[in-house]
């Protein structure tokens, strides 16, 4: 056996734990801080409130989207209305101008006859 092998065997040699090791570990484990009543209540609240909050978020999101859609539709309707009024006004203007020009031509004709 080489010196290295001897050192390895020594290092891996089974050793018994020091006296009282088990009781010390158990004592330390029992001293772990437990969840206080307040913390437990808080966790329960969070767990119960989460679905309600999620539902509220969905409803608020839906309302916001509906409002956005209403604004979009309203703006589109406004543009359509302005275009319609513009076309209607222009066509009435054209019709009136034609009537006026016919009146002017006829008026000039009668003046010439006189």
């Amino acid at each position: 056996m080489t010196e290295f092998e001897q050192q390895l065997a020594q290092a891996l040699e089974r050793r018994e734990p020091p006296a009282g090791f088990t009781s010390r570990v158990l004592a330390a484990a029992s001293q772990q801080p437990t969840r206080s009543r307040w913390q437990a209540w808080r966790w329960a609240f969070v767990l119960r409130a989460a679905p309600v909050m999620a539902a509220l978020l969905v409803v608020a999101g839906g309302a916001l989207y509906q409002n956005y859609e209403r604004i979009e539709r309203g703006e589109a309707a406004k543009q359509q209305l302005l275009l319609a009024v513009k076309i209607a006004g222009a066509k009435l203007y054209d019709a009136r101008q034609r009537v006026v020009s016919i009146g002017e031509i006829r008026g000039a004709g009668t003046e010439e006859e006189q």
Partner: protein
Amino acid sequence: MKKLLIFGLAAAFVLPAWALDNNIKMPVNLDRLAARATESVDVTLDASMLELASKFLSQDDPDQAHVKKLVSKLKGVYVRSFEFDKEGQYSMSDVESLRRQLKAPEWSRIVGVRSLKGENSEVYLQKNGSKIGGLFVIAAEPKELTIVHIDGPIDPEELSQLGGHMGIPKIGVKHESAKSAGKDQE
């Protein structure tokens, strides 16, 4: 009895379609013209859409405030306008079915101008007792056809007062011309 039931059901489905646009039905062939047009406008605003649009018109903008006042009592605004790149893309028979619906005593033609150039304008008013219940304009030019139906009480004078605003040229004639426009001239 069975036939009566079938007729009743058919009427229930068909009548609302006919009742659209205050009993004026836009001919289907008008929509076909859109395929041939280089530019087309199709505006269909019923009472609820007009109410919605009206809420979005600004009171601060004089033009929009004027339009808001103008449309406050209207039940609908319908516009079909087609622009073509060449002549002969539509025929007057396309609008004939509309003309047939604009009959007295409900409707009366207050303006009818026809020119040799093929520029025809017709303005009809719907009587609602002593008030105007609607306005219909058919403007047919060689490369353009426009149909406007304003359903509800409207003063054409008020509409033409928009001249000088919204891109509508200002009418450079005296107020009396409105009265002369009332005469049917062909």
